[in-house]
């Protein structure tokens, strides 16, 4: 796209930022013009977030300059950045759950400081902004009740309501399903047409291909390359991002002829999980050494199924593990029966971020121990075992005394895998095990899951990512409105079939 305005809306020039011995940003330049989507692509830990936090005034660069509309500017705080027309949608939202959408949008903005709150005025004002930019949200809905994609739209509205001309989106698609991503990209498209300058941070190549006008690839704190639309394809970007070509080397051993059924659900109904819509009357079986992939548009009951299987929600019907009824068993009993759980939300449910890696690795052993376990903990042994696991699962750094929060997302997930897969599970329930990870870490997660499968574990894999499902699954189930709309072995199904089933078509 030709730029009518030669001055970039936002320009970062020669940005340096160090944290101790780590250089997060080394002389990075980045420009974004009005009416342009500039994607910052890189693996986790590449320095993208640091750069964006500098652009939004969260952090000060050690060296380098920031220009807005051609004027050199110092951003000392996010408030500063907002006042200068920059808006940022963080990966973790900063919304007040008990407030309505309108109240959240108004929070901290100029009109909220007038003293009195004009409830109707607020709602009207927010509806107007929402309609003008085609960002569909109900202004009187309470944020607590909204799904994650709508919460994200509230964040976008917040920025637009403050009239942000430069919009920074940090990993906006990390939490979204396929269709939600499409809606988001449409919104971004409209904002581009409206003349906003948009910086989108991601590690997913697909999004780049879809909407980027320009893309800058960052690796290890340095900008590798900047390409305009027409100059890039997925191979080039992947290579620039990882410094190597990704080789897909998953070796799966051939399944045995008739291995035993490990997990069997009969007429399983999870009526009211707190996590979303229910599933009703589900029948499924997973054999030893088999990966059952579960596809579906977010909100069609896969959350409920996971909650039912992991003892996190009440359910009706039968769930049998090697013949033993485990319906409504609490996680404690499931753990003792050899069920491993890899939750989607690593930091929220998979790990205790404030505890050390050793403690996190021992979490299940210590909290759901066998009856004859000693009451005292031998931390020396726990640490020694942790050290071995950290090495075996290639966690970096392999220091058992580090808090889990100090690790990157990919390494955190390796810690979860190390804990859950080293227990030689009979059943693994994996919920989007690779979301938010970079390409290298995704490959690692996949190899480990397949290794567990080859060792004879039954694996239930829920994923937003159809490629992941096609790659790992032996059989695939599609859930639609809480029921199974397609069940097939992977070899006999195409992506198109799955897509149709996800939209509700039955075969």
């Amino acid at each position, binding site marked *: 796209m030709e730029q009518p305005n030669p001055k970039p809306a936002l320009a970062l020039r020669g940005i340096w930022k160090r944290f101790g011995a780590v250089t997060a940003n080394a002389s990075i330049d980045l420009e974004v013009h009005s009416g342009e989507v500039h994607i910052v692509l890189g693996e986790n830990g590449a320095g993208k977030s640091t750069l964006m936090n500098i652009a939004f005034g969260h952090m000060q660069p050690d060296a380098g300059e920031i220009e807005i509309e051609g004027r050199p500017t110092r951003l000392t705080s996010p408030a500063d950045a907002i006042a200068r027309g920059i808006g940022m949608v963080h990966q973790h939202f900063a919304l007040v759950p008990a407030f309505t959408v309108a109240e959240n949008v108004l929070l901290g903005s100029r009109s909220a400081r007038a003293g009195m709150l004009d409830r109707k005025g607020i709602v009207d004002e927010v509806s107007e902004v929402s309609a003008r930019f085609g960002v569909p949200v109900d202004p009187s809905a309470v944020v607590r009740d909204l799904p994650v994609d709508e919460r994200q739209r509230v964040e976008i509205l917040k920025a637009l309501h403050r009239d942000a001309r430069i919009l920074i989106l940090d990993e906006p698609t990390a939490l979204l399903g396929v269709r939600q991503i499409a809606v988001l990209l449409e919104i971004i498209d409209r904002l581009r047409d409206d003349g906003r300058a948009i910086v989108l941070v991601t590690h997913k190549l697909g999004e780049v291909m879809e909407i980027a006008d320009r893309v800058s690839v960052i690796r290890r704190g340095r900008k590798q390359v900047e390409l305009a639309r027409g100059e890039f394809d997925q191979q080039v970007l992947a290579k620039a991002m990882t410094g190597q070509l990704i080789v897909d080397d998953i070796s799966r051993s051939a399944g045995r002829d008739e291995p035993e059924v490990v997990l069997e659900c009969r007429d399983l109904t999870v009526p009211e999980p707190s996590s979303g819509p229910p599933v009703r009357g589900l029948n499924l079986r997973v054999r030893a050494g088999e990966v059952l992939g579960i596809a579906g548009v977010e909100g069609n009951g896969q959350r409920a199924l996971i909650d039912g299987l992991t003892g996190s929600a009440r359910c009706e019907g039968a769930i049998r593990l090697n013949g033993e009824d485990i319906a409504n068993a609490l996680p404690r009993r499931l753990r003792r029966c050899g069920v491993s759980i890899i939750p989607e939300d690593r930091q929220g449910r998979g790990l205790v971020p404030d505890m050390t890696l050793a403690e996190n690795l021992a979490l299940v052993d210590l909290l759901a121990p066998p009856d004859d376990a000693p009451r*005292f903990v031998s931390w020396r042994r726990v640490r020694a075992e942790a050290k071995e696991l950290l090495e075996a699962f290639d966690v970096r750094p392999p220091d058992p005394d580090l808090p889990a929060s100090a690790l990157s997302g990919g390494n955190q997930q390796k810690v979860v895998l190390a804990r859950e897969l080293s227990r030689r599970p009979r059943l693994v329930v994996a919920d989007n095990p690779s979301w938010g990870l970079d390409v290298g870490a995704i490959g690692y997660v996949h190899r480990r899951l397949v290794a567990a499968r080859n060792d004879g574990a039954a694996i239930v894999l829920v994923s937003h990512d159809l490629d992941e499902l096609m790659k790992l699954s032996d059989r695939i189930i599609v859930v639609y409105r809480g029921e199974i709309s397609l069940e097939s072995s992977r070899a006999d199904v195409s992506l198109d079939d799955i897509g149709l089933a996800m939209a509700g078509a039955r075969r």
Partner: protein
Amino acid sequence: MTLAAGLAVMAVVIGALGKNPLQAAGAVVDGSLGNSFGIGQTVQIWTILILAGLASAIPFSARLWNIGGQGQMYLGAMAAAGFGITLPASWPGAVLVPLILGASTAAGAGWGWLPAWIRNRYGASEIVTSLMLNFVAVLGAAYIIRDAWPQGFAQQTESVSDNARLPVLIDSLRADISIVLAVAAALGLWILMTRTRLGFAVRALGANRAAALLSGVSEGAVASAAFALGGAAAGLAGGVFVLGVHGALLNGFSAGLAFLGIAVALAARLNPLSVIPVAALFAILRVGSNNLQAGAGLSPATGDVLIAIFVIMLMVVGVIRFSYGELVDG
């Protein structure tokens, strides 16, 4: 850090009152540690504050809010008074004292367990129930004082038998063995929290409830244990009041120390070992501020004001730290 900030604010307030903060500090130290009477009093308060701090610190570690330290202390005191008065006075102290303190500890533990049980069974907030149970316990004590074993018209029960009194450790300070018990309790709970599976479960539950549940923690059992342990410490404090400090159950005996225990726990970052020095500091402030008028020309009420400001400072810092994750929802 927090302590330093609190002390700094106190210095500023004293300065604003037109007095010399250093002189005031001198008066506090002089009043609390300057003579044997002051030292004896400080050690007494120190003992109680260690136990009251533990009563909060253990449940807080599981992110369970025990506001019922006062009630648990009262239960311990009632048990001590009841047994101390009714058990045969001829029994030797070596039998009476452990027996009665054991009863106090158990009574406090039971009263502490109650809000946890209500929470597990009915989902009621332990904050509200533990707070409400304070009133029940205080009224129960009033009954014992007025009707069960009244001491004439005095605001206290009869005295416990001489053999049931805590043995005095250092005569000149009138310091009894309770300080040894309190320090031992802190040590024991520290070992429990850091070296046992139960302690690990308590900490895991507090640090990330969702992850702990998914990993198989038995929430009800751990919550009950944490509350009972806290209640046990408070109950022991009640027993110490009756067998040691007063020799009887007095109306309003706890003098707000149970609630000060909450601040002690927060300032100690919920670490049972750190509770010991933090409680000592608070005891010095508490006892020493009685000397502010003579030593620095400040009203003795200023002492209470300073403690209040100090406590609020700690709470502000503490509360932000402990509830941040609940305010911001991803």
